[in-house]
């Protein structure tokens, strides 16, 4: 076990040395991987910021329950009881018809209109604040409430929510497809880099296998090199995206200030970025693994 760990450490150091020994070739490889990764990473970051912006602009989704004109307070209490146990309900508030009318009267021009009607045309209502992110649950809740007696209309302000969710889902899917395509590209780049490395070390591989090296032993330095290259590519991608955000944020600040907002584009949380770097490293590892495996298939152990 100690020998295994030691060999891993030696391979890691050797991979770093190899990158340093061939700075131009290494830099070009890392740059190619970095640019390839920067595209899906940038799209992912923009999508995250769009989600954040949508949340800030629209607040939480709301549901309005309008009772029938003849409904009593007991009918309203029944609706409140149903809301109390419903999932996704953050809070709800009973708005009596008198309060609604008073509020309407405060709006410019409405006082005269209400006066011409003679009586209060507004029903008692309940305003329900919902947790964001689950339009299907909101639809189900609206359907349940419509079944209750003396409930005249249930209005779910969900269309925009559904459209936004759909747009963001589409965006996420597009980012996923882009990431998958460029991930495959990155594996191919690493595969080819390691293949060239294998060709330069063919004699060493052959001798090592002849005198007792296992396939895992031969593969190890190459997968470390792939993982290190992938990680470096991930760091370059992160640098490119961070630089782009920095460049864009001046204009974004000026634009958001006109909407009385302090919104700025931001990178995802550190844990997500660490996962991304891990993913880039894993792709590099996979490319190298496939490359060495392909070499083993072409040149079986003597």
């Amino acid at each position, binding site marked *: 076990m100690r020998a295994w760990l*030691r060999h891993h450490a030696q391979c890691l150091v050797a991979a770093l040395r190899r990158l340093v020994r061939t700075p131009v070739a290494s830099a070009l490889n890392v740059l190619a991987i970095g640019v390839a990764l920067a595209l899906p990473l940038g799209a992912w970051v923009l999508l995250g910021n769009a989600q954040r912006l949508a949340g800030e602009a629209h607040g939480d989704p709301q549901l309005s329950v309008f009772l029938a004109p003849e409904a009593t307070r007991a009918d309203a209490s029944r609706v409140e009881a149903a809301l109390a146990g419903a999932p996704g309900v953050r809070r709800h508030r009973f708005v009596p018809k008198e309060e609604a009318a008073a509020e309407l009267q405060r709006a410019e021009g409405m006082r005269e209109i209400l006066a011409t009607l003679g009586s209060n045309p507004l029903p008692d209502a309940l305003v329900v604040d919902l947790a964001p992110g689950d339009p299907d649950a909101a639809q189900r809740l609206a359907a349940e409430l419509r079944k209750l007696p003396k409930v005249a209309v249930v209005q779910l302000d969900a269309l925009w929510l559904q459209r936004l969710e759909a747009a963001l889902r589409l965006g996420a899917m597009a980012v996923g497809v882009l990431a998958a395509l460029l991930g495959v590209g990155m594996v191919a780049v690493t595969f080819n880099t390691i293949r060239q490395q294998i060709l330069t070390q063919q004699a060493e591989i052959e001798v090592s296998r002849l*005198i007792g090296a296992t396939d895992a032993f031969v593969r190890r330095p190459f997968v470390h090199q792939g993982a290190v290259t992938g990680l470096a590519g991930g760091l370059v991608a992160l640098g490119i995206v961070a630089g782009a955000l920095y460049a864009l944020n001046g204009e974004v600040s000026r634009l958001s200030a006109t909407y009385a907002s302090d919104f700025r584009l931001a990178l995802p949380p550190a844990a997500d970025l660490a996962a991304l770097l891990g993913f880039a490293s894993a792709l590099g590892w996979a490319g190298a693994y496939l490359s060495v495996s392909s070499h083993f298939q072409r040149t079986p152990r003597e």
Partner: protein
Amino acid sequence: MLAVQFTRVTKRYPDGFQALRDASFAIEAGEFVFLTGHSGAGKTTALRLIPAIERATSGAVLVHGQNVGALRDAAIPYLRRGLGLLFQDQKLLHDRNVVENVLLPLAICGEPPREAARRARAALDKVGLRDRERAMPITLSGGEQQRLCIARAVVARPSLLIADEPTANLDSEAAAGVMEIFRSFNQVGVTVLVATHDAALVERFGSRAVRIDHGRIVAGHGALAAA
């Protein structure tokens, strides 16, 4: 205890060429044996069957009682770690210096670096290359290169040393030096099997010789013949 035992071994290559035919011989642990015969007689094939570089078409090759033909591919590296192999084409790494070449088997065996360095230098000392440890193999003479191969083969302390034509490209003085090194390892208990077509060398050395002719063992079967 037999170090190597061939029992009715036949090796036929995919192109139909039969390199070994019903070959049987045995080598006792601690013995020094020559495998002799003309060029193309089957010596190299026989040597390559021992570390499973080739697999026998039929018959059994036993190394320290272990049937090499029955080994799974994953077990072959561990078999080879117990053998010291000297190849006809040397297979030195020319982008590594002398000591780095000798360190390779120890790295494969997972030897700690400090101990590996000590053992590599000791092996170089035994073959008289201690003062050339930083030299590149290309700068060594033919005899020195062969001695480097020996150092690499013995550094992991194998119990069986197999050499394919180790003196083929050496002058008589260098060849004698190499053979003396083999003898010194044999004297401390290492079984040595040397393939050579040089009948004079075999005669001069005086050890048992297993003779192959067109893939058949024609003399020197060893313990197997006695049994």
